[in-house]
């Protein structure tokens, strides 16, 4: 066994416990968990936040809202119709009624339309004589009577979103997927394949696309540039959804496809965090999927995040921001029965499984 010279120094020898697997991952403590997230931005409980993203972002929205953070709500309906019915119709799930936004391209499109004086016409899908907004098909479970009503509803939505963007100081955006379906005629990225919620699958009208890291980076930077071009101050806090893909259209194994998606998204977040002052990364992905904060935190189905994990995510966020003033944990009534998670957290992606032959 070679002996180490006593006068040799290692670049690792003075690193904190969080830098070492054994101390940080096998036996994490408060210090190592706190070290997971060293925020670039100053956020207080009064900072106006906008939430958006894939299914997991719904957990973020609910946890932050219930814990008392200033989560903006541009299209709230729960006060008028009750929380359950509001959620069923896509209200109060995020800061506006845009439904799940799985890809960076979807977010870019949405912000483009919200800030444009002449947004693109609504992309309308039909099912059994009912009409749906293809860019948020889940928000009206039974669709609307006519395509014109879809257009009107979309215009209302974009106006509400514009107000939210104008107030937001921070956009908390959870990236979910790299795989997506593109409408051939318009080039628009869709939240789900036609034929799941509404519409009809036709290889002539949609094509599959799996975004690369370069594309994800370009879309996120373009979104930021749009905000700045309109004089809007919001910075973007990125997270990556820990929820694996339900299905892949890539032709490969869903496990490999999940690794690709999450790796691309995580790498894009890392690059932006390291190089761009307008972006930061919050490690919800690591908290849920690894042992870094006592996890992994998955429900018994191995896919949905466990409520304890969601609470830990909020706790780490709160610990890092605003010190003692921060709401540290979700209130006692925040408890998602893991058996009901898939029902409560509306997710078009789940429908892919339902459509499996």
């Amino acid at each position, binding site marked *: 066994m070679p002996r180490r010279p006593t006068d040799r120094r290692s670049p690792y020898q003075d690193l904190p416990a969080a830098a070492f697997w054994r101390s940080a991952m096998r036996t994490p403590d408060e210090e190592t968990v706190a070290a997971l997230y060293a925020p670039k931005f100053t956020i207080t409980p009064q900072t106006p936040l906008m939430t958006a993203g894939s299914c997991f972002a719904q957990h973020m929205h609910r946890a932050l809202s219930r814990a008392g953070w200033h989560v903006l709500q541009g299209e709230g309906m729960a006060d*008028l*119709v009750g929380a359950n*019915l509001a959620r069923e*119709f896509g209200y109060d799930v995020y800061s506006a009624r845009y439904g799940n936004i799985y890809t960076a391209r979807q977010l870019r499109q949405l912000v483009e339309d919200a800030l444009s004086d002449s947004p693109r016409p609504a992309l309308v899908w039909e099912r059994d004589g009912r009409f749906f907004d293809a860019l948020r098909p889940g928000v009206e*479970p039974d669709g609307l009577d006519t395509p014109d009503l879809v257009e*009107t*509803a979309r215009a209302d939505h974009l106006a509400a979103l514009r107000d939210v963007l104008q107030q937001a100081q921070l956009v908390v955006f959870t990236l979910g997927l790299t795989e997506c379906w593109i409408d051939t005629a318009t080039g628009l990225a869709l939240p789900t394949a036609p034929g799941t919620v509404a519409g009809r699958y036709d290889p002539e009208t949609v094509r599959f696309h799996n975004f690369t890291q370069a594309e994800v980076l370009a879309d996120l930077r373009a979104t930021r540039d749009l905000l700045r071009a309109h004089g809007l101050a919001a910075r973007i806090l990125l997270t990556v959804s820990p929820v694996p893909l339900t299905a892949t259209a890539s032709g490969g194994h869903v496990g490999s496809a999940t690794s690709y998606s999450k790796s691309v998204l995580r790498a894009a977040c890392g690059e932006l965090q390291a190089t761009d002052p307008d972006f930061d990364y919050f490690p919800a992905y690591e908290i849920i999927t690894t042992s870094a904060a006592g996890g992994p935190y998955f429900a018994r189905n191995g896919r949905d995040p466990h409520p304890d994990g969601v609470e830990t995510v909020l706790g780490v966020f709160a610990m890092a921001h605003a010190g003692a003033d921060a709401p540290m944990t979700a209130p006692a009534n925040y408890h998602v029965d893991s058996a009901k998670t898939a029902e409560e957290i509306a997710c078009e992606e789940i429908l892919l499984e339902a459509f499996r032959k």
Partner: protein
Amino acid sequence: MTKLAIIGNSHVGAYVEARTAIEAAFPGLDLSFFVFPRHDLKSARHDETGLLAAVGEHNTALPTEIDLSAQDGILVVGQPFGMIGLNALLAAADVLGWADTGKSRNISPALFAAYLGNAVNLAARRLMKYFRDDGRFAYAPQPLVTDLAEAGSSKMASLAAHPEAARIFPLWHDALARVARELPCRIVPQPDHLRDSAVFTPRRLARTAALPREKTPGPADHIHMTPEYALEHFRAFAETWPELFDTTGRKSKKES
């Protein structure tokens, strides 16, 4: 004697005024009355012995309590069945594809219908819970207003003045009928012959039409109805409860 209580909000007044006519039509009835002081369930306490007593300030000229345990049946009248929330929703939002009333928000017809159904169902469940799921209770919705009622004079009057009232009220009637079918809850809707339409009660049945000139309130009351209306709605109630009323013989079963 069959002991029967008529309780509720200000709509109890028409039944009090119809007392003689009701007792003449249904001999053997022993009627008593109670009015919630502030027209909501929280303004009285219904305890486990069946005593219903006014809470807080109340008009001492009115009965302050009633022993419901002594009653064979109880008719709770003037119930809004979701009208308050419905009014609040339509004060905040228009419905897509319906008349534009200048609201800054739109909701879909599907959400409106779902809300309406939920609101009526919830209201019925709330009443049933308050009265301890007791099968002796029956519930009558508040009467439709007349077409002379001023918007704002009541929640129902505001809805009746809505340009889409002809769509709203049939949905509400349907929701009431559905709840009556689905819940173990005896609901007595306003009979068809007491309606001018899905939205209005005929003007001749408005309280204001029956009052002598010196008693005419200002503004005129097109919200509450006459004793004639009360008697007819009571007849409809009696038809739903053959075990309690011998409607063919016009006598209560206990009497006969």
